[in-house]
């Protein structure tokens, strides 16, 4: 049995359905992420797990127990708020002691519990500081320590790194992964940042319009998105719609109006004439100046129409003779770090049949 079970949960606000019949389960010790654009219902779902909101239909079960009748203060889950919500009139020690006091942990056990929690988030020695004396990253760690000190069954994190700058965010992501491994508590993490979700999670539920679009491990979410929305939301993606015109074993040919037939491997067996979308990641496309190679796969010529030089890589937007745009990514691997092509250059693009992913409609 899963640790946390969400069964057919729906939440409406007037006409608007924020969470629409969502079912999912989180295993003990799992780092689970709810990923989606703002307004997709991920925060509402989190609030229903915490108890700040109640589902209109469905139930939230923890260890098999329906939490419907438990107010937030009586649920063995803790939340790390986006704004951290540290108590400004209490020191770091006071903040971390607060849940212990509420749980009536004997006073003699508290100092050691507080010290352990602060050590977990590497804030030993900051006990006497007030929140306004801490940096953003330190506040975030106090919020995590405060939430973990009572050893909850599940830790809910609501975009806990959104307010921090990119460099610090990466550092704290690694710390969160290690911390989660160390404490072994299930994390339910809400974010709209797909790279963060891919980097942190054991499993991701991609949400859109209150529904779970796809629930899977990060590599499958990235490599095999099951809808246009997921493909587009997770990273950059070339998306081409077309019809299945030929099938040869596991390889199908999709007729894309501006590209002609594109061959792509698929595990599903789409019927001839059915339509769907090819999702193709920019980094899977080979881009070169030379003549077309003979390797099996897809080959196109085109002209660089736009480019974005990003230091480590350059994103090329190439226009084919058919008027289609293909986005390709190429590492700037030359010693000089310069980009390989300029706007207007003629380039050759190719990708193997198993690079693309066909999303049937």
């Amino acid at each position, binding site marked *: 049995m899963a640790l946390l079970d969400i069964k057919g949960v729906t939440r409406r606000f007037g006409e608007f359905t924020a969470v629409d019949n969502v079912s999912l389960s989180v295993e003990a010790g799992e780092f689970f992420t709810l990923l989606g654009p703002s307004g997709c219902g991920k925060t509402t779902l989190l609030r229903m797990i*915490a108890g*700040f909101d109640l589902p209109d239909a469905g139930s939230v079960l923890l260890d098999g127990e329906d939490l419907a009748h438990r*107010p*937030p*203060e*009586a649920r063995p*889950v*803790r*939340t790390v*708020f986006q*704004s951290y*919500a*540290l*108590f*400004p*009139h*209490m020191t770091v020690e006071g903040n971390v002691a*607060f*849940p212990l006091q*509420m*749980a009536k942990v004997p006073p003699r056990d508290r100092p050691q519990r507080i010290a352990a929690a602060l050590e977990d988030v590497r804030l030993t020695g900051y006990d006497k500081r*007030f*929140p*306004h004396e801490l940096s953003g990253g330190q506040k975030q760690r106090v919020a995590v320590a*405060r*939430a973990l000190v*009572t050893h909850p069954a599940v830790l809910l994190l609501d975009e806990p790194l959104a307010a921090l700058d990119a460099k610090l965010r990466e550092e704290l992501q690694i710390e969160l992964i290690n911390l989660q491994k160390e404490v072994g508590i299930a994390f339910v993490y809400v974010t709209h940042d797909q790279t963060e979700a891919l980097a942190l999670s054991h499993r991701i539920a991609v949400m859109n319009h209150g529904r779970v679009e796809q629930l899977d491990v990060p590599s499958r979410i990235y490599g095999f998105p099951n809808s246009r929305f997921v493909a587009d939301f997770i990273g950059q993606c070339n998306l081409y719609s077309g019809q299945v015109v030929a099938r040869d074993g596991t390889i199908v040919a999709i007729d894309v109006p501006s590209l002609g037939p594109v061959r792509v491997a698929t595990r599903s067996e789409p019927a001839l004439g059915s339509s769907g979308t090819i999702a193709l990641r920019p980094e899977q496309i080979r881009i070169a100046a030379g003549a077309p190679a003979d390797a099996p796969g897809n080959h196109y010529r085109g002209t660089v129409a736009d480019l974005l030089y990003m230091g480590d890589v350059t994103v090329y937007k190439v226009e084919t003779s058919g008027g289609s745009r293909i986005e390709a990514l190429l590492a700037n691997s030359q010693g000089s770090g310069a980009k390989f092509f300029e706007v207007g250059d003629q380039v050759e693009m190719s990708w193997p049949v198993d690079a693309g992913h066909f999303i049937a409609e």
Partner: protein
Amino acid sequence: MVSGPPLAFLLVFFAAPTLIMVLASFRSPGEFGGLAPLVDASGRIDLNVDGYARLVTEPVFAQVFVKSAGYAALTTLVCLLLAYPLATLIARSAKKHRDLLLLLVILPFWSNFLIRIYAWMIILGPNAALARLVNRALAAFGADPVPLLFSAFAVLVCLVYVSLPFMVLPLYANLEKHDRTLLDAAQDLGANAWQRFWRITFPLSLPGVYAGAALVFIPALGVFAIPDILGGPDDTLIGNLIKQQFLETRDWPFGSVLSIVLTAAALALAGGAAWVARRSGGASRA
């Protein structure tokens, strides 16, 4: 530190009058009120500490000071208990309703102070519904009827009534700024409604409590009109004594002595409150 215009304001409206009062407190009363000439007929400068000596030697004055402080403290406490829920209600109500609610709080200021006190004479009068109701209830328990008017009760009720807005407004200004997420966090961490109030809301509202307490306590300490009109013979407060010295006894120097002691007491309390507020407020800056 203190820049030009505020400094000038303080000099003209606070320092100068206080200085005049301090000087007057060391002079002798004039024959028909006012002050006796500074240089008397024999050419000597007439300055003395008779007023201060009287204040120290006659215990009745200390008693009146203590009683006044007691009335002011009780008024402050009752105002705090009444204002806290009201300010919370306003701070939590929808934004579009807040202005109206605040307007209702300050609405009484639009009518004259004395008229509002006289209104209480009618409300608390022996033939009014309230007095009848109270005395009927007392009679049911076999107790003797009590007059509501001309009593400490009447004075306190009216003091609370006129002071309440001065407690509500600073409290509202403070509570309105509170971050609701903190209460969510406290609840998430296991705090029930009472614990959320006592551990989070109340400590964070202390600057508002101190400001309101100072605004209520200090004016209540020097009040004279309310005990004059609604009080009984035992309800003479320090404000009444000062008024008497100037208008009835015509002993300006002693009136000045009492005023200075009152001002010093008020300043000491305000300073103390500010000090406490700064100490606890320093931590509450988010």
